[in-house]
């Protein structure tokens, strides 16, 4: 993992000191709440329905045990003993007191964490592949580029007052676990025929009110020209993106208005003027790369007798292994996914005690490396198969062994009306209700991969547009209704889901999901995921079944 050096640390310390001063000025009444708003937002501090919320950045979703323990500790001492992992792989504390916020930032800085640029119209935390460094699929380690982007974007002089927020995803595997095509910029590492490394550059994807799958504006950008190209892209956006209407201010609107070709042409024209002088020196990329050098893996064989024996003896472990363990690039190792979607729990929430358990396991069995996924789960990327059973048992004891990764109960949900001032409807109770309905693990496994994503409003923090089944909360004359969309995907086969029909009242949503699942099970042919069946049959059979029952 990347280790902060003196420069990175002093930067965070300076930032924490600055914010402390700003809070003092606010508490002393020297600045108004309105003036203070932009300052706190630059430090990830939101005013929500009940309290302040602090959003801590977890750069490209990567943590060590010390950092996770610190988050647990802050949750315990300054919040109500838990935290919420978000779809941007950040961690939110929802019950923060303003006067304690500076102390929290100071404490975060002691373990190289911060809340810089987790809100505001700036470049936000980069999403990367939670399996980086562990999966055999990748052609490079995307964390190298993510870290370089983190540094380049920190208090960027020119690009910290963009028309709207700006989100990057970086992946280097054909299986996209970052939702790169629905980001402002998605970078997919590619190799040219001659072996040189570069990026496919996708610009202008996004969700919210006007969802777009982002077009590719450059098939292959040589890796060493990344930052001049980003300069050019961001400059075109900063100068020409709309600022008259915040709902139309994301880069996706500019790209759609100009068209892919014209936008790409403007970027290329600007890029020629920018020149290579704006690129990051190869020496710095090499320094960052060295920090992500593969850890020392033991030389093991593929088959672990301990693992096989434990699976045979412990059916619960066998089930966990089937759903939550993913292939590692090295023989005898596995990637362990830890679901934060326990049946009836709030998706993405983890108690401080649970964070401590994961930190301990990461340290003891996982090379001190812990990841957050944009699907709001945790990952121990490097665990020996020999140790997998011990990890499972410890997770189970902490209520963290729900074997449902990618299953119908592995639901993404935004905080919704339970916490968020923007929401129209609750999201969490809907997720909980669906999870209870499909709590029968055999049935959930029979259904297989099915991604449900729930947003409490059109801002789409719950990514409903790209859910295989998306659920959007809407307000109808003061009542909560839910709009279903089917067939979305945020992965390499990205697509925006199609609206099924009129919105349903809250108490009809779970029945409708049940009906949709039954139709799928009836219609599917061998090997088809829900998404495949839907793409083959279209909406008709689903629509008919859901709305037939309504009459």
């Amino acid at each position, binding site marked *: 993992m990347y280790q902060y050096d003196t420069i*990175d640390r*002093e930067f965070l310390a300076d930032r924490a000191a600055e914010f402390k001063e700003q809070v003092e000025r606010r508490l002393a009444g020297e600045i108004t709440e309105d003036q203070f708003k*932009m300052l706190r937002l630059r430090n990830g501090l939101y005013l929500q329905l009940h309290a302040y919320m602090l959003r801590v950045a977890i750069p490209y979703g990567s943590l060590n045990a010390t950092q996770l323990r610190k988050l647990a500790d802050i949750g315990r001492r300054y919040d109500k003993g838990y935290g919420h992992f978000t779809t941007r792989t950040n961690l939110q504390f929802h019950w923060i007191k303003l006067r304690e916020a500076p102390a929290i930032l100071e404490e975060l800085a002691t373990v190289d964490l911060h809340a810089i640029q987790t809100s505001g119209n700036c470049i936000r935390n980069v999403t990367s592949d939670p399996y980086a460094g562990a999966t055999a699929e990748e052609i490079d380690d995307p964390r190298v580029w993510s870290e370089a982007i983190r540094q380049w974007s920190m208090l*960027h*002089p*020119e690009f910290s007052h963009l028309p709207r927020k700006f989100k990057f995803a970086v992946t280097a595997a054909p299986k996209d676990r970052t939702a790169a095509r629905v980001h402002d910029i998605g970078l997919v590492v590619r190799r040219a025929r001659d072996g040189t490394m570069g990026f496919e550059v996708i610009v202008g994807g996004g969700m919210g009110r006007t969802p777009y799958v982002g077009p590719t504006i450059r098939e292959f950008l040589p890796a060493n020209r990344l930052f001049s190209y980003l300069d050019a892209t961001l400059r075109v956006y*900063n100068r020409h993106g709309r600022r008259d209407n915040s709902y139309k201010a994301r880069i996706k609107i500019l790209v759609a208005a100009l068209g892919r070709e014209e936008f790409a042409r403007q970027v290329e024209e600007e890029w020629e003027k920018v020149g290579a002088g704006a690129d990051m020196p190869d020496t710095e990329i090499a*320094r960052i790369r060295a920090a992500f050098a593969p850890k020392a893996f033991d030389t093991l064989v593929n088959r672990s007798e301990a693992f096989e024996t434990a699976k045979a003896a412990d059916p619960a472990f066998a089930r966990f292994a089937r759903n939550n363990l993913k292939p590692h690039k090295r023989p005898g190792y596995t990637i362990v996914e830890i679901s934060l979607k326990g049946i009836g729990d709030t998706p993405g929430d983890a108690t401080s005690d649970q964070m401590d358990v994961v930190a301990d396991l990461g340290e003891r069995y996982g090379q001190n490396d812990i990841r957050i996924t944009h699907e709001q789960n945790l990952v121990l990327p490097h665990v020996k198969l020999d140790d997998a059973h011990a990890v499972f048992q410890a997770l189970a004891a902490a209520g963290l062994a729900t074997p449902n990764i990618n299953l119908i109960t592995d639901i993404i949900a935004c905080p919704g009306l339970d916490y968020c001032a923007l929401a129209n409807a609750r999201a969490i109770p809907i997720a909980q209700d669906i999870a209870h309905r499909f709590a029968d693990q055999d049935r959930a496994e029979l259904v297989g991969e099915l991604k449900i994503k729930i947003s409490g409003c059109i801002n789409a923090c719950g990514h409903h547009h790209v859910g295989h089944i998306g659920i959007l909360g809407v307000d109808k004359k003061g009542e909560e209704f839910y709009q279903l969309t089917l067939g979305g995907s945020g992965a390499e086969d990205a697509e925006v889901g199609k609206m099924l029909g009129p919105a349903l009242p809250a108490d009809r949503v779970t029945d409708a999901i049940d009906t949709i699942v039954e139709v799928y099970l009836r219609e599917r042919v061998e090997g088809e995921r829900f998404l495949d069946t839907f793409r083959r049959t279209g909406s008709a059979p689903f629509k008919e079944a859901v709305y037939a029952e309504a009459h």
Partner: protein
Amino acid sequence: MPKLIRIIDGQFVSADDPFTHVADDEGMPSGDVIVSLTRFSAEGDALISQGRSVGVRIEPDEEVEALAYDLPKLAVVAVAFPKYRDGRGFSTAHLLRGRFGFKGEVRAVGEVLREEANFLTRCGCDSFETADGSSPEQWAHAANRHRHVYQRASDGRTPAFTERAES
């Protein structure tokens, strides 16, 4: 004479402002003036030939490229920030210094707040008509708050990657 904050020999100081902002529908006063791009296009050469110093004010929706050939004749380019959150002026300032090599005064005008001092300075602004009554000391404190920077920018500060390479 009104005051503004300027960077002189690397220090933020209070300085007299000899320039008068002149709106498009106002009569032309004597002395040094800052006019809009539109007015400059019409009257710029005449004003300069009168031997006074002339500045041009660039609004966020105006392209600094339009001034490229006139820059050597200008004493000041005033970059307008009608709202602090409208960040187009940062690109304008950056291009003035980096692409067009403008050596004159780049002045931030409009909703110019202490909290933006760092970004403004880094993009090449060297004078500030502040909207929040900041003193030069407060301004300097805000602008110099961070000991390190991660990017090359028009202020010439050494970016982190160069600090590292040289250490």
